[in-house]
């Protein structure tokens, strides 16, 4: 495979960033870059359907990595070394976290933008804005972790939507406009079946009066993977102002049940 050297270096953050990497990190970064290029080429091969992995094939990859797939994005870099983070300000707000820890947050911003443009409720728009940011902290069970992170600060419907969007992502609902995405074949395997607790949660949700709250998060989720989309958090500041109970002490310093989670996101380099 031919590598565009300039594009590769740019993808790592420029020549200065490359110079700071040790040889092992450079090798890892090159391998990862080539995998991505290959994936792009395969995806562009018109007429040939993509071959998705099985659950067993995905499991066989576990010992090829030095980081588990569930590690939050702040704790592992897919390309080279992790970068030094800017310190959080005193009395940190949700906006500070978006700018300094969740950036670029492109997926959640796209999702919330679509919710706004299609006339959804402010609770749903806020849920879309927040639904995946906990992936910076941890990935498994991100619906539950995300709901726990935001529960002290957002409306109950928003928490409900964040918690259960994870479950509903596995179940198509054409009536509501949700299809099973091919990316789930890619990341879970073609023969994956959700575990019993997810099945049980789905059964509960089907008859719940708030079923549509997490369902609408999944609907917007599906359409928020445009690599060229230009989005920003500015259009959502009024909704955040109306619905997000910003603690005056700052997120992480207010002794709420999830304050420790915000502190961990603020200080991911803390050894203990």
């Amino acid at each position, binding site marked *: 495979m031919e590598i565009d050297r300039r594009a590769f270096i740019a993808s790592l953050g420029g020549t200065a960033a490359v110079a700071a990497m040790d040889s092992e990190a450079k090798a890892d970064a090159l391998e990862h870059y080539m995998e991505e290029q290959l994936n792009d080429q395969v995806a562009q091969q018109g007429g040939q*359907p993509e071959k998705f992995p099985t659950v067993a094939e995905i499991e066989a990859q576990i010992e090829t990595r030095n980081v588990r797939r569930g590690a939050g994005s702040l704790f592992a870099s897919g390309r080279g070394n992790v970068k030094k983070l800017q310190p959080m300000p005193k009395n940190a707000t949700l906006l500070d976290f978006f700018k300094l820890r969740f950036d670029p947050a492109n997926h959640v911003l796209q999702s919330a933008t*679509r919710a706004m443009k*299609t006339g959804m409720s402010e609770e749903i728009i806020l849920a879309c804005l927040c639904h995946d940011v906990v992936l910076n902290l941890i990935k498994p069970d991100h619906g539950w972790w995300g709901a726990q992170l935001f529960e002290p600060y957002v409306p109950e419907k928003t928490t409900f939507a964040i918690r259960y969007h994870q479950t509903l992502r596995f179940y198509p609902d*054409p009536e509501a406009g949700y*299809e099973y*995405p091919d990316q789930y074949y890619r990341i879970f395997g073609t023969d994956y079946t959700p575990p019993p607790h997810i099945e049980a949660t789905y059964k509960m949700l089907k008859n719940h009066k708030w079923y549509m709250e997490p369902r609408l998060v999944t609907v917007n989720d*599906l359409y928020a993977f*445009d690599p*060229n989309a230009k989005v920003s958090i500015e259009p959502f500041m009024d909704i955040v102002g109306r619905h997000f109970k910003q603690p005056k002490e700052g997120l992480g310093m207010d002794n709420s049940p999830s304050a420790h989670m915000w502190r961990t996101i603020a200080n991911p380099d803390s050894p203990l």
Partner: protein
Amino acid sequence: MGGVSLAAQSPGKMVTYKGLEMSVAGVERAPTASLKDCPPGGNTVNATSRSGEEFAVVKVNFKVLPAFQPNTMLKRPVVTDESGKTYNTAVSFVDVGSTPEFACAIPFRVPTGTMLKSLQIDAATLEIPAGKH
């Protein structure tokens, strides 16, 4: 798109609704469908069908006329088959007035071989003539 069969070539009857000219350009069949809103952006997610199903992807051409009001909201399209059964799509109309002319590929997950009769866009009905479905 893998495994696509094109069932129509000539454009369908033009319908004007809320300042939009719309016509069905054809229907394609495929096991997967690209999920892009209308007008289409660059979303990279595809929908997948199950055994015994396929996507009937209805291609629609749009032209925005001066009478079109910005911020007009349109309901998600619905397709009706020859027996009168309706099917929904995941595609929504987003930023419709942002570009003067555009074409959308609207996927409907249907039982394999389902023959389509018409496409409903908000309160407008676009016939899918024989040979196009």
